[in-house]
């Protein structure tokens, strides 16, 4: 298990390096940020001078080498727009994004697990059909639309919750719901199918035959065995969860990493984009690892070598 974790951690670093390289090249293919930094009345000389002082006139290989050399030391360069080091800019926004995605996962689990179990238990009954339809909608609805509808209904119409910003639980509920509901939909569908499978297993029949109460059979014997794939899917979905957070952070003016990324792409703030991609790559591979380890913890049949 330990060797497995170490190997996976090394893999995570390689993934992060690869992602950074791809992004480095893609960004430079898109041009340089000099035009966006200068006011329109700047002359061609201003343009050449700024390009030179920012180092964008150097050969690509030299730029890449400098990037790697500094990145190894944890230096991702200066943000061109914010005029301050890029990595701290990203790291200082991480707590906000964790708060949002963490709460979204909780909402996803809190909604997805009960609904999934209900649907599996009442297989083929109206409750199952309704649950499946709702989860289909949940997966199909675009996050930005859901986010705006939540604002219009709960903030503007009924004045129950604030419309924007971060600080306190009340400001967290709407954005976390927007990110969490699509996850809940996925969990519902997945758990329903694995639960149905597990419920037809021999050991469940045995448990029932032993005379155990239905809730003990359901939650201790069935759910416990069906929950593994759910944990995996939460880990795998972590990437798209961050993706959903990008959109949601923009709509709810949530000061997180996703919003920083979107603005940095728009401004061609290369250093910030690279730092975000590096951190995200580590997070996503890390989340997958945590999910795999958790699986082994919850389900003793799973072992890694």
């Amino acid at each position: 298990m330990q060797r497995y974790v170490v190997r996976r951690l090394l893999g995570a670093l390689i993934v992060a390096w690869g992602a950074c390289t791809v992004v480095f090249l893609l960004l430079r293919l898109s041009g340089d940020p000099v035009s966006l930094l200068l006011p329109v009345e700047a002359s061609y000389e201003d343009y050449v001078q700024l390009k030179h002082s920012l180092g964008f006139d150097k050969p690509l290989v030299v730029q890449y080498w400098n990037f790697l050399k500094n990145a190894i030391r944890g230096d991702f360069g200066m943000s061109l727009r914010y005029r301050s080091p890029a990595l701290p800019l990203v790291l200082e926004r991480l707590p906000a994004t964790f708060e949002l995605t963490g709460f979204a996962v909780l909402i996803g689990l809190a909604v997805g697990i009960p609904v999934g179990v209900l649907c599996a238990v009442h297989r083929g009954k109206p409750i199952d059909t309704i649950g499946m339809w709702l989860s289909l909608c949940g997966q199909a609805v675009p996050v930005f639309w859901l986010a705006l509808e939540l604002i219009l209904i709960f903030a503007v119409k009924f004045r129950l919750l604030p419309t924007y910003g971060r600080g306190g639980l009340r400001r967290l509920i709407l954005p976390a719901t927007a990110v969490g509901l699509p996850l809940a939909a996925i969990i519902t569908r997945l758990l329903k199918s694995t639960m149905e499978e597990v419920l037809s297993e021999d050991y469940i029949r045995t448990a029932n035959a032993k005379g155990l109460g239905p809730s003990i059979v359901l939650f201790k014997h069935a759910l416990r065995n069906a929950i593994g794939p759910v944990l995996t899917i939460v880990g795998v979905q972590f990437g798209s969860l961050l993706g959903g957070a990008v959109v949601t952070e923009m709509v709810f003016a949530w000061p997180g990493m996703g919003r920083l990324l979107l603005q940095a792409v728009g401004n061609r703030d290369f250093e910030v984009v690279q730092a975000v991609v590096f951190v995200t790559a580590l997070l996503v591979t890390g989340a997958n690892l945590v999910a795999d380890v958790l699986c082994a913890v919850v389900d003793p049949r799973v072992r890694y070598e």
Partner: protein
Amino acid sequence: MQDYNIRRTLCVALLLCVLVLGIGSGSTASGNALIVAQGGDVTTLDPQLQGNMVTMNVVINIFDTLVTRDADMELAPGLATSWRVVNSTTWEFSLRRGVEFHNGEPFNADSVKFSIDRLLDPKTNSPIVELKTVSRVDIVDDYTVRIITSVPDPLLPAKMVLFGGCIVPKGYITKNGNATFAKQPIGTGPYKFVKWIRDDRVVLKANPSYWKGKPAYDNLEFRSIPNSNDRVAALLTGEADIVANVPVDMVPRVETDRNCNVLSVPGLRVFYVGLDTRTGPTADKRVRQAMNMAVDVPAIIKNILGGHALQIATPVGQGMFGFDPSIKPYTHDPERAKKLLAEAGYPNGFSMDFAHPSGIYMKDYEVAMAIVGQMAKVGIKLNPVTYEWGVFLDKYRMDQLPASLLMGNFAWTMDADNSVNFLFRTGQMYSRYSNKRVDELIDLESTTLDAAKRKAAFSEMVGILHGDAPWIFLYQANELYGVRAGIAWEPLMSQVMWMHGAHPSRDGK
């Protein structure tokens, strides 16, 4: 053992819950606070390291500029009480006495010299380029400075109104360094800096000893809400008092709310379709004039922009120095347009590419599509192409955009020079036009310090440009602000959100 595992997982989940719940307990601004929401966050609080209006809107409330503009948009005293021309390359500014920075440091000639020197120092890497005509600053006495320019610069006082004119504290920056200054700025302005939470808010508090008088609100917060629908929602629920850039579609919604008003102010951004006068069909003046007649600008303003724009006749819009009201816009006349096209040898029209931004300016895509439709009616087929904004600007700079392009020009100095100099002078980076007389007039206006002569030069110049039609002249778009009832605030045409004069009022809606 396994039960224990599950219980442990549950415990961790519960702990997470509690942690999340415990973060802050919701913060609302206390009593006498004004909350202003705009679409972005400041990029830095060092006024000399920025060049965008979102940052300027915040910075202008912490810092003062040498020169300001009054309600009629005329140049007015700021930290400089008066200024005069000494000779063609020397401006003298007399400075206000008794002004202190927020840390008690006195404002004097030394502060001005330090500020401008710092801005021009290549090591500062400032994106502010407009002071490049300045060669040095001489201190005459404690409250008089002379700014020496390499060439005559008639716009110097106008350039001292915004980005280049902010005065920064010498002692504070020398002692604490640039990085600290950018995070904990000290200025002479109406509000003092309290805190900045990135992408969330900048909190300011009133400067009780401000030289123009203490502001009416004790606290001023700038919030950053990128999504315009959410920004308006915040206004409607009262979570923001003033919001910038209300989308045109949302104006009726705000106006029908009994607690909110919309303020629509003529803007400084002039929109046009730039035509390549060097090659192709648009090299013919008659074709360019025909295109001006083919577009129904009043209909675009009425139907797409909700009436929140003014049609323009020349590159110089209303409110700018050099505006000539005697020149009237082209009238919509498709029949005459067709005749002109036939005269020019295009009885069946022609086809060309048409570049336009999308999602950058108010309704840019819709306006572009309307133009395409109206052109089709006179036989001109425009093929719309759009680029990501950075690519658009790159191509614009490198002269790689198609023969027609939709663009907006921000005349922030409020002087016509800002519009004509780099857009029409032969050989300038953005110029796709050449006219000897216009070049002469630009040379004249950009080097003469005599206002009357400049005005005459502009009048002649915009007359020529109107006839030559290197653009399809469209409109200057209004700025739209949403304001809660009970707040009196006059937005400035210069578009900078100066909040000193904002005060509570009893007038409802």
